[in-house]
């Protein structure tokens, strides 16, 4: 039943093969150095860097973070050294990392996205590029590209020819139908999509009647959003054939497994790492044990393994009508 051999946890995102499906999400551990004493990068699949913009960004005024019930709001505003600073300060760091390096980029317009992709490709230290078209904290342009399928298409079409590196489009959940945006990206050469970025939220201090964040609005992350992120991931998996990288509220190995079970090829760990830097490694162990317990040899057996029992499943109008009709026959109603 339980094979002694160590399970094979390798997964692929386009031409990039990951040692295992556990990544650290963008904005959580900078460019890897900040957490070098806290995380053993040799055990995880890879990291996604803090998002890099063309010019340096000071970020948003304080306060930038506030804890909410089972979550946190942030309004960092992509504080980063810009492409020049990336080359000067970050490339040397990334070159030394013992795991896959996925560099996240964000432009204010198509032209900036193009320059960024060219630059990161040229830097030679990136194993893939996560195209952040979903940041809620940099003003209108931030989410524009992933709340509108047309604009997402525009960006992806423009940058696809500029690099051979796998392109992962990072999507916002703050849309009516995320699958539409994912399909648009897939149709324009994205090798994968990753989701979710944060949900737009806010907090008010009733004691002084002021918004808590300097920008009033921020992005919600953490365990609170997991059920929502999982639903977005499942919606997307059913809509596109390219790999889906899932994230949102993962705080234990079982959470990571849920994303794999609905069909995600890999997952990213975010907020919960602030309290538990060992979480990514714990997830790798948990997934390995799970594959073993299933009596399987590869993580492929877990990805998309969720079974929807007969008689269950999302409601279709027809079904709702049948129920209603059946109920109509009988008048014994209830609230």
């Amino acid at each position, binding site marked *: 039943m339980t094979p002694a051999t160590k399970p094979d946890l390798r997964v692929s995102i386009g031409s990039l093969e990951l040692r295992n499906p556990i990544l650290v999400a963008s904005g959580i551990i900078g460019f890897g150095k900040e*957490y070098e*004493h806290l995380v053993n990068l040799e055990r995880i699949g890879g990291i996604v860097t*803090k998002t890099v913009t063309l010019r340096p960004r000071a970020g948003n005024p304080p*306060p*930038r973070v506030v*804890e909410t019930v089972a979550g946190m709001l942030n309004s960092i505003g992509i*504080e980063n050294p810009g492409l020049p600073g990336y080359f000067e300060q970050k490339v040397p760091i990334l070159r030394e990392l013992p795991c896959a390096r996925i560099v996240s980029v964000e432009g204010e317009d198509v032209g900036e996205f193009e320059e960024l992709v060219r630059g990161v490709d040229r830097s030679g230290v990136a194993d893939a590029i996560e195209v952040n078209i979903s940041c809620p904290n940099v003003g209108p342009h931030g989410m524009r590209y992933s709340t509108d399928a047309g604009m997402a298409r525009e960006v992806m079409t423009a940058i696809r020819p500029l690099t051979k590196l796998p392109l992962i489009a990072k999507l916002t959940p703050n849309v009516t139908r995320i699958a539409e945006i994912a399909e648009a990206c897939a149709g324009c050469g994205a090798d994968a999509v990753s989701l979710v970025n944060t949900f737009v939220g806010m907090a008010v201090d009733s004691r002084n009647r002021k918004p808590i964040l300097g920008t009033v609005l921020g992005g919600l992350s953490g365990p609170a959003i997991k059920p929502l992120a999982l639903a977005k991931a499942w919606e997307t998996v059913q809509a596109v054939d390219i790999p889906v990288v899932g994230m949102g509220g993962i705080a234990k190995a079982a959470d990571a497994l849920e994303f794999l079970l609905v069909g995600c090829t890999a997952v990213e760990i975010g907020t919960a790492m602030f*309290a538990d830097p060992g979480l990514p490694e714990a997830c790798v162990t948990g997934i390995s044990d799970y594959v073993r317990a299933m009596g399987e040899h590869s993580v492929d057996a877990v990805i998309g393994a969720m079974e929807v029992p007969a008689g269950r499943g999302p409601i279709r109008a027809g079904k709702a009508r049948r129920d209603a009709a059946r109920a109509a026959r009988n008048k014994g109603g209830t609230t």
Partner: protein
Amino acid sequence: MKQVACTVVENRELTKGNFLLTLRVPRQFSKPEPGQFVHLRLSTDGEPLLRRPYSLEGYFERRGIRAIRIYYSVVGRGSRILSGHPKGRELDLIGPLGVGFKPARRKTAILVAGGRGVAPLLFLSRRLTEKKRPHVFLFGARSKNELYGVREVKGGRLHLASDDGSVGYHGSVLDLLEREWSESGHTPATAEIFTCGPHGLLHAIADFARERGIRCEASLEGPMACAVGACRGCPIPLRPEHDQGRYPAMCVEGPVYDATVVDWERLP
């Protein structure tokens, strides 16, 4: 900086809602500087979600046993949970973190403490005493029973103030500072200020120092997520004339920072 498991040696309520926590730390925990802090995981069930940063009130080594002390008040979710941890409980800690106070060798250190802000200054006072450096300790609290650790102050002159007059000077510690400065003949060349307390107080002390060109370091507080410089969640706003086009991170470039350049209006 390391993530280590430490053990609660004592977690005692000194005065209503104010606790002194003593934690035994393993030897991987490197010797901390006054002003540095630790990032404590208060529970493992995910509530609260984030760690909480606490300044070190002291660090002690006896017969190879290392211990740190934290002086904290119960104000919200996390500190309430912290106050419930019994002797023997193991806590996950990251530290020591941030940069501490940097007293100049040849200057008189004037320590100005407000309320529980006394914690890192007691640590500093002990360190100065060890190094036989003369210093002045000004401590203001709401009332007598909130004066913690004054007996600890050895190597330095001590002046007390209380809002209710129950002990020492009846008024603000700021008045003590002004008096000390005018009466003891300090000059920016001979003395410097180290302070910690409510931001309102720090703001006033910063203005006092800036107007007179006195070097003044303050230990700041604000919301933090990672506490290691990665998330950029803890920006220190600087006065326009000192704007560097970027925000220093309180967790790695602070929490002790030049009080005269901080834009106190914009600090959380």
